[in-house]
């Protein structure tokens, strides 16, 4: 596994991502971030709080789909309550995530775990949009199909994998 990641890193080192990283390193914004000790922890805090909003909302909606929480509300009502929070959380995550990339471009862009995480993020967003749309139109009083229940479990696991990826960026074999 770690050999494979090493090979991935080696490959990344031969892409234009290296030049891009070096270019980002010389931008004004990168300078501001690297010269302020508290910039990265502060941006990471915003990033984590946004994950809490996204993941918390996903867990609430998906547990309703599974019939475990919010039984007094229709699935559509629970979706109405939490899906807008997921959207705004994604916006905050993209903004704070991009600032983290600008602050430490080499650590992120020349990192195999970062790209695996990005792939998982893309997959989780596409599936969530599809899933949220499908469950939003379940008529009041109706239950979710087996497929939707499986989707609910899968999405929670997928978001956990995204978080694991985010944490392991710091431990990539580079």
């Amino acid at each position, binding site marked *: 596994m770690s050999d494979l990641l090493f090979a991935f890193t080696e490959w990344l080192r031969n892409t234009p991502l290296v030049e891009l990283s070096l270019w980002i390193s010389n931008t004004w914004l990168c300078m501001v971030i690297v010269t302020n000790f508290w910039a990265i922890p502060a941006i990471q805090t915003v990033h984590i709080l946004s994950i*809490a909003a996204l993941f918390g909302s996903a867990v609430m909606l998906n547990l309703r789909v599974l019939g475990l929480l919010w039984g007094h509300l229709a699935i559509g009502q629970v979706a109405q309550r939490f899906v807008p929070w997921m959207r705004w959380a994604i916006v905050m995550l993209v903004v704070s995530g991009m600032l983290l990339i600008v602050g430490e471009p080499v650590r992120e862009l020349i990192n195999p775990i970062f790209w695996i995480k990005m792939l998982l993020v893309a997959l989780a967003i596409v599936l969530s949009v599809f899933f949220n749309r499908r469950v939003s139109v379940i008529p009041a009083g109706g239950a979710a199909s087996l497929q939707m229940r499986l989707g609910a479990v899968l999405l929670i696991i997928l978001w956990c994998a995204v*978080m*694991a990826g985010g944490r392991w960026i710091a431990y990539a074999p580079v």
Partner: protein
Amino acid sequence: MTAATETIWQKIEYSPVGDFVASSEWAFPTLETIHVIALVTVLGSIAVMDLRLLGLASNSSAITQVARNTVRLTWMAFVLAAATGLLMFAGKAASYMINPYFLIKMGLLALAGLNMAYFHLVTWKAVNNWDKGVVIPPMVKLSGGLSLLFWVLVVFFGRAIGFTLGMFY
């Protein structure tokens, strides 16, 4: 800090558990990962309750209903976060105990706990008077607001520990 208390933290650090966490290649990142997943679940579920106490979201559900659908999840996630947190602490107990951000974080956790205890033991007694609707007494809103504030600060100070652990001697 006296020599006697130092020994306690060092004893933890040099215990089999502490030694394992500190020397294993995968233990610490794995604990961190579970800690993050647990703490965002604590934050996310507690925020649903706090925003309802502030009258800002979930207003179509009674406060008791929102509590019924969040508190258990919050507690389960908190237990997981505390357990993984204790294990990470064991790996470098002495360093954590001289880190001001860690100590402030523990203080904030205590404040969050006191705020919650006061709310559930005292304020909650009159819940029938403000359970439904959006006319919420200031004391209830204060509890919700303080809870959000304490938990946001807990996240910041928690993150700060990771950047400062080796800086204090």
